[in-house]
């Protein structure tokens, strides 16, 4: 590889792809794979809290600051997961991949989607399916972690999606924090009866 090309090669990347399929599963609209803007502040707060085992201040999706708990003691048994989870089930729009209708450019300080589209089949809503984490794969020298979520439009009218994001549930505190936010350019329309799929890929390359 030429030295000039080597310098442009990214090593830690997050990408997204958003596409719409019709009732037959045919892709009718596709952004193609695009680079994410970046992780927002809460992602680094989580990393430092986790690695240091020391609480750090974080902002939840309501804009409220809280101390992200790094350790916990319980006399009784409980389901212990990691510090955060993004494995939202179907119909739960409080975390996992979310979609919204605002195109305000992302900033480091974003703590939620600007205008989240809620789950449901009412006007302006999309039906959130469960999060899916695909197998880690290696291609093009990158180690890749893909994950995705689908959103079905049963609202009766076209919905325009302008922003996407990833929200994690903070398990010890039962709070929700934004990790990623991107604005789609151009926005993507999801007609009645069609399904939107949002896929993220985190990839690294030494």
């Amino acid at each position, binding site marked *: 590889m030429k030295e000039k090309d080597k310098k442009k090669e990214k090593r830690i990347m997050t990408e997204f792809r958003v596409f719409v399929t019709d009732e037959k599963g045919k892709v009718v609209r596709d952004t193609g794979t695009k680079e994410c803007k970046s992780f927002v502040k809460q992602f*680094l707060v989580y990393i*430092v809290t986790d690695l240091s085992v020391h609480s750090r201040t974080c902002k939840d999706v309501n804009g409220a600051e809280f101390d992200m708990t790094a350790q916990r003691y319980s*006399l009784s048994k409980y389901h*212990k997961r990691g510090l955060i989870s993004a*494995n939202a089930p179907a119909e739960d729009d409080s975390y996992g991949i979310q979609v919204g209708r605002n195109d305000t450019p992302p900033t480091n300080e974003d703590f939620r989607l600007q205008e989240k589209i809620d789950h449901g089949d009412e006007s302006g809503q999309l039906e959130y399916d469960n999060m899916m984490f695909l197998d880690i794969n290696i291609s093009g020298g990158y180690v890749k972690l893909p994950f995705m979520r689908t959103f079905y439009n049963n609202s009766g009218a076209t919905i325009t999606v302008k922003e996407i994001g990833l929200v994690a549930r903070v398990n010890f505190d039962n709070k929700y924090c934004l990790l990623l936010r991107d604005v789609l350019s151009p926005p993507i329309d999801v007609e009645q009866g069609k399904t939107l799929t949002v896929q993220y890929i985190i990839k690294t390359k030494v």
Partner: protein
Amino acid sequence: MEKEEMEDSIVLAYRVTKQDKKKHIIYDSGIVPSKSFVRQFIDCMKVELSDTDGSAKDVTGTEVNMPGDIYAAEYHYGLHRADASEHNDDYGILVGASDTPPDNSDCVLYSPIHDGSESGELEYGEMLFHDVTEESGYIEASMRRIFYNGGTENVVVKEIGLVVNQTHANKNFLWIRDVLDTPVTVEPAQTLTVQYIMKTKA
């Protein structure tokens, strides 16, 4: 900004400094871009985000299971810890003596330098973590560790890395490995400081 000028989603960098016995900095690598996270970082992130079991190669090269969700009582931490105490060379920032180029599949430092004051050893300090701050439009977090040469011979450091303890499996996994552009010779009574920096910018 043109696409090809966009930076990584997470800018990962390191800085290595050396101090003499009077604490004067006598060597500074400056901020150097890290090669990247290695495969185990992705393996660990999947377990964390998905709440499901996964597997990865630990520092012994053994593929081990990493439970995502365990049903248990007592004291619990997050899924990953790097808060190694002094003299603990099992995890946290580690240093080594090999200059084999990094690879996605690296699971250990090739030639770890162990804690101690014997020949070829350095005394590991505790891991230190800095608060998340904002600098020049970037959100930045960093961690560092010092290594003191309490022996009587020079120790040459060629590789550095970050090993994380996955708490459910209680195994250690390499997340980052770098080979220094210029090896650093740590003479008796000198101190090496290794700092890893992570930055993001939306």
